[in-house]
């Protein structure tokens, strides 16, 4: 059981295209830097995309008066993944995006003006709802019909990829653009601060001294196509999506269970579905947010699934920051790149393993070993756990 991936696109703190992202990953260069919002003097570490809204908007050629940063980032990555795909009346095309903040960056501007009693423009709120970000991207690409948005916090992006694969497998669509997008907002930065899991230092996934996450922003999309669609498009297959699963942890609204129940289930089911044996997994792109809770729970889950044979693993959130709903999609693109380029990425800022599990992520770029299969984890609030398995074969 597998689905072909024929296009990828990504925008993150480490680059505005697939090639720029790949280069930074190869050079072990993080995109997390001191950052502050335009109207605020507070500086903190974040993985901001190095492009302003006016630049992104001009480049997007959109006619929309109001367009959220979430949409602009998503549109850029979606265009790269979609390539020069043409509409064809015999090819049923869909788009599934994931976002957790939607147009919150615009809503914040509105709400600030609204609270001040200055002339708040209510039309701005047309970009608020998450679905509208996907609609805008679809409209710019000329996609209509199946347009859907998933919002399951930090696992959203992986879930969009999973849903797309299921729709292809069940013959509902021939081609589907899947991914996620989220912009940095005051809302989320303050949110993670309120939970006291925002690290004021560079985040240190899987390290004993870890204190929390650094937020990032970005977007990534993948084009999934069936055989029929490929006959029309002539697209080359970059990699395959072989397995997927979503499971609920059912432990706590935000925290992961100490025994990693949901994470274990998601990984086990995804690997089982892929038909690839656990020992054949070359690399795990972990969720690895850098919070005390996630990294311990995920480490326990890795041990549950792989015993004492845990494959090479790392969290690329040490490069991009945590891009929330986009994370699953950004890391899916990194997984495809790992397979294409035979790369295992380092986990930056790691020095001491977590006492309880003793697991050590990869700390130096590995480019000498073949990478046939990659497991990618995405876990979210509400105990929403998803795992995807990518490989170089059907």
């Amino acid at each position, binding site marked *: 059981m597998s689905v072909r991936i024929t296009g990828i696109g990504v925008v993150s703190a480490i680059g505005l295209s697939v090639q720029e992202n790949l280069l930074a990953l190869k050079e072990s260069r993080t995109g997390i830097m001191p950052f502050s919002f335009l109207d605020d003097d507070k500086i903190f570490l974040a993985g901001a995309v190095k492009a302003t809204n006016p630049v992104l908007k001009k480049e997007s050629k959109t006619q929309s008066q109001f367009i959220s940063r979430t949409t602009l980032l998503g549109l850029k990555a979606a265009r790269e993944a979609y390539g020069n795909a043409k509409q064809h009346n015999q090819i049923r095309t869909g788009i599934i995006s994931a976002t*957790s903040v939607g147009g919150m960056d615009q809503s914040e501007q509105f709400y600030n003006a609204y609270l001040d009693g200055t002339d708040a423009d209510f039309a701005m709120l047309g970009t608020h*709802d998450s679905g509208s970000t996907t609609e805008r991207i*679809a409209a710019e690409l000329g996609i*209509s019909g199946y347009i859907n948005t*998933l919002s399951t*916090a930090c696992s959203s992006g992986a879930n969009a990829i999973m849903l797309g694969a299921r729709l292809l497998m069940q013959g509902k669509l021939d081609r589907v653009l899947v991914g996620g997008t989220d912009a940095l907002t005051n809302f989320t930065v303050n949110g993670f601060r309120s939970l006291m899991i925002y690290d004021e230092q560079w985040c240190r996934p899987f390290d004993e001294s870890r204190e929390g996450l650094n937020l990032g922003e970005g977007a990534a999309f993948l084009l999934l196509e069936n055989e029929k669609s490929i006959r029309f498009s002539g697209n080359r297959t970059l990699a395959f999506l072989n397995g997927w699963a979503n499971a609920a942890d059912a432990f706590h*609204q935000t925290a992961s269970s100490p025994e990693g129940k949901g994470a274990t289930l998601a990984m086990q089911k995804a690997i089982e579905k892929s038909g690839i044996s656990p020992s054949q997994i070359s690399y795990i792109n972990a969720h690895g947010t850098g919070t005390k809770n996630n990294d311990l729970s995920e480490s326990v889950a890795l041990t549950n699934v792989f015993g004492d044979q845990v494959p090479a693993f790392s969290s690329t959130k040490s490069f991009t920051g945590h891009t929330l709903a986009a994370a699953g999609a950004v890391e899916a693109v990194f997984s495809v790149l790992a397979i294409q380029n035979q790369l295992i990425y380092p986990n930056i800022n790691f020095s001491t393993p977590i006492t309880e599990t003793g697991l050590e992520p990869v700390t130096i770029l590995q480019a000498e070993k073949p990478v046939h299969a990659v497991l990618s984890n995405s876990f979210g609030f509400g*105990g929403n756990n998803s795992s995807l398995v990518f490989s170089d074969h059907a």
Partner: protein
Amino acid sequence: MYYISAASTISHQPAFLNPGFSGMIEPLHAGSALINPDYKEYIEPGLLRRMSKILRMSVACSGACLKQGGIEHPDAIVVGTGLGCLLDTEKFLNHALTVKGLLPPTSFIQSTHNTMAGQISLSLGNHGYNMTHTQNSVSFENALLDAMLLIDEGEKHILAGAADEHIALLDEISKQLNVRSDSRFTSGASFFILSAEKSDQTLAGIKDAEAVGLVKNIPEQITAFLDRNNVSPEDLDLVLYAGSIVGTEDEEKGFQSFWKMENLHVINYLKYSGIYPTASAFALHFAVDKMQHTRSLKNILICNSLIQHNLGLILVQSVEA
């Protein structure tokens, strides 16, 4: 066919735990309030205190639905919400912009769209597939399509539903933007058990559903949908609709003249549910309940174009006992 084995709704209508409610509903008026069940029967008091309106509605509504269907553990939980947890979103947004220093995290935690689905899995101890769809006015249809896909993949019982909540700001927005509306903005929640097989519990069947984004030609889409399901317009006993399919002022006449059927029975369900993005979930319960109590109803089409560029279609069919 996908079988509905249980249905539950919290709305302005006396639908909760009340089979036959479709015979006693009245259009919403300015003073009509949301009919809340006794939430304490479904949620422990400590938890209830922290829960926003949408969260308590979803947990109680889904709880009652599972009880009715005699299902302890559904194979999956799928929820649609157009605008998510607005109360907590506005609360945290307000805090983040006005309060200096450390903020209480509860409203941030409960602002995420999947709070409902997550909380339901938590209250059941359910480890199955857990999904939240948010595509404004067709969020419920997209959730329903996911549930149908899960049944196609071999699952047996899916808890599928939708919820949206009203905040005062929505009224102000619609006033400022001159949104024309023939009903009130409000809140609502509806949940269903969608099953792979017919049973004694079966209330009605869903033959098919569709959600079309950026729809170009609504009449053409409806015709194609019915054709695909071998149903002719003459077979339709009732059309429940929101919004206009042909852009006419008189929406009812629009339907009737479109199919050249003067006597076609059409009802604008927004008059009974009020307006919220996932009101088509109310329409589904309304259709199922009506079918249960009026045996002559065989085919009901729910036609949702609440937002003109989106179209949701659900074909409900009666199931012989």
